[in-house]
């Protein structure tokens, strides 16, 4: 096996990677930093307190006292003009005006287009009405559950892995191949009996070797730092990650097929990856885009990967149940490799 050119090329690729100081950091360390940053930015702090202002007047301190007992509200006591200005600036969601005496109705001022403002009005009114004597007509009971797998960070981590694998696969192949072409290494290799397909395949194989490490590092870290758990099977996550990475690498080969220098390669890789980072549900759900682009988005390789991975990690689905996304990844992987080999220039 040591005599096999494919093995030798793959080993050469792996050695080159491990001996490049920056490569190890960018592949393993950088995604962790992003996870930490985003996890902190979007951390669950409990439901945010809604800011309301009680307008100064005869009933103000009484009303403020009742409202302060409500944990969901943050209450400020303000003069009318300041309160109005803050309401306009959206610094407070709601102003409560008690009027001159108990005979006056309590006036709520808010912007009904903002759901949080409507919520604040409801909460404030509920408190005040209860204090004044409102009773429930029906008997009810609350049973609360903690939805693990339902937080933003749980949703985000699989998307980050997808982004990382796509990015790694494309940069790993395109950058290195185009550099080799630029340095005429490809030309030198083209003069040997080396099979062209072996050269391209060695990049995909070497890339696969790093995938389990990336997956493990990311999920272990996410578990320790944020309590993110894989609801499905770890083996399924690994298998999907390897398969996705293989598929993504095909795009890298296309970007590398003709580019004569690294500037062009940079441009092509960015052209391929950046739209997918935006469209494919990495940082926010792709459902936010209009309905008519949804079918297009679903067919992108990163979407397929993220969708399947989320089902496995957050919903506990099996790998077998993800037939559609797997098929999409397969098609991309095979077609891109075939096209790339056809298009490939050695000089």
């Amino acid at each position: 096996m040591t005599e096999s050119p494919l093995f030798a090329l793959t080993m050469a690729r792996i050695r080159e990677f491990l001996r490049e100081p920056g490569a190890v950091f960018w592949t393993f360390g950088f995604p962790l930093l992003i996870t930490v940053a985003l996890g902190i930015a979007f951390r669950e702090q409990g439901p945010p307190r809604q800011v309301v202002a009680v307008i100064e007047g005869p009933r103000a301190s009484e009303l403020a006292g009742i409202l302060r007992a409500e944990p969901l509200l943050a209450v400020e006591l303000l003069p009318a003009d300041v309160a109005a200005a803050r309401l306009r600036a959206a610094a407070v969601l709601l102003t409560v005006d008690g009027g001159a005496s108990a005979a006056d109705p309590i006036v709520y001022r808010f912007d009904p287009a903002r759901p949080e403002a409507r919520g604040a009005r409801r909460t404030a009114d509920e408190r005040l009405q209860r204090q004044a004597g409102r009773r429930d007509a029906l008997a009810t009971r609350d049973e609360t559950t903690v939805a693990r797998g339902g937080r933003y960070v749980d949703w985000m981590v699989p998307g980050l892995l997808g982004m990382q694998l796509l990015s790694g696969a494309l940069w790993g192949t395109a950058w290195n191949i185009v550099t080799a072409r630029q340095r005429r290494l490809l030309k030198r290799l083209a003069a040997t009996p080396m099979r062209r397909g072996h050269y391209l395949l060695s990049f995909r194989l070497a890339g696969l070797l790093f995938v389990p490490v990336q997956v493990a590092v990311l999920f272990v870290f996410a578990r320790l730092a944020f309590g993110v758990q894989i609801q499905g099977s770890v083996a399924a996550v690994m298998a999907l990650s390897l398969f996705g990475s293989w598929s993504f690498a095909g795009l890298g080969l296309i970007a590398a097929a003709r580019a004569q220098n690294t500037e062009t390669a940079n441009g092509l890789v960015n052209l391929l990856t950046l739209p997918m980072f935006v469209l494919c549900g990495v940082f926010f759900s792709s459902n936010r885009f209009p309905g008519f682009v949804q079918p297009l988005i679903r067919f992108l390789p990163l979407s397929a990967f993220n969708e399947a991975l989320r089902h496995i990690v957050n919903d506990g689905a099996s790998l077998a149940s993800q037939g559609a996304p797997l098929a999409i990844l397969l098609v991309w992987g095979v077609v891109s490799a075939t096209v790339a080999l056809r298009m490939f220039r050695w000089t």
Partner: protein
Amino acid sequence: MDAAIRLQGLVKQYDDVTAVAGLDLEVRRGECFGLLGPNGAGKTTTVEIMEGLTAPTAGVVEVLGLRWDKDADQLRARIGVTLQETKLFEKLTVEETLRLFRTFYDRQRARDVETVLREMQLSEKRKSWVQKLSGGQRQRLAVALGVMGDPDILFLDEPTTGLDPQSRRALWDTISALRARGKTVVLTTHYMDEAEFLCDRVAVVDHGKRIALGSPAQLIDDIGGHHLVELSTDLPLPPEAVSDVAGVRSARATGQGAATGLALSIGEPHVALPALFTRLAAHHARPTRLVSRAATLDDVFLSLTGRTLRED
């Protein structure tokens, strides 16, 4: 002896440049054949066509009796190549690179890595990264990679360009040793001393055409003598004043203005030089500068084109 390489009417046209403008060549098996010419003469293009890296615009290309459009796989297994200024896998060691290239060739035929390291004097550097090698070591590695498959023909494109004199000599010795083992070697160079030292036959190329062909000695002979004399005198003399001196084959004027002189091609120095001094005395002229030297391929090129091989 059948030809190792045969080129007939070779033409290579790029958009606005004709790199090769109708070239005929034959390289015999077992010889060291040189393509000599200045930069831009079309040597590299010609060699890359022979190596199958570029397709010709027109003409016949036969290597080892085979053709690139039909027998590419076979040919690649039987030739070895070094390119101009190749950068290799910078972070692999010398040994790793050799082993990698070895896997491309037929197991039975490929050379042993230890032996090649020794022959190319790279044994001490076997664990060094390629990027840490000196220029001379890199070139030796490039040649080592070229011979890994025990090729029938070895192509060397400007193998000593950019090397210091010591490394050049070392590489010449290596190439000579390869020749001694019966390999056919095709070499491009713009150094005339390299062509004279290494090559059995040389094709002089300029502007994509062959302008002379023969062994170095033959080519020098053809310009009319193996010795040259460069002469300046205090009283300027026209070439006719010395061209009929015994032993002088030809004379021509060189230089302009204040730096005029004569270039003479002579037969045997011990006959021509005394006769020349006698003639100068007869004209009451004294030599201010006299250089007597052996003719080189540079002189061949100069006499064929009016330019020197090295534009610098």
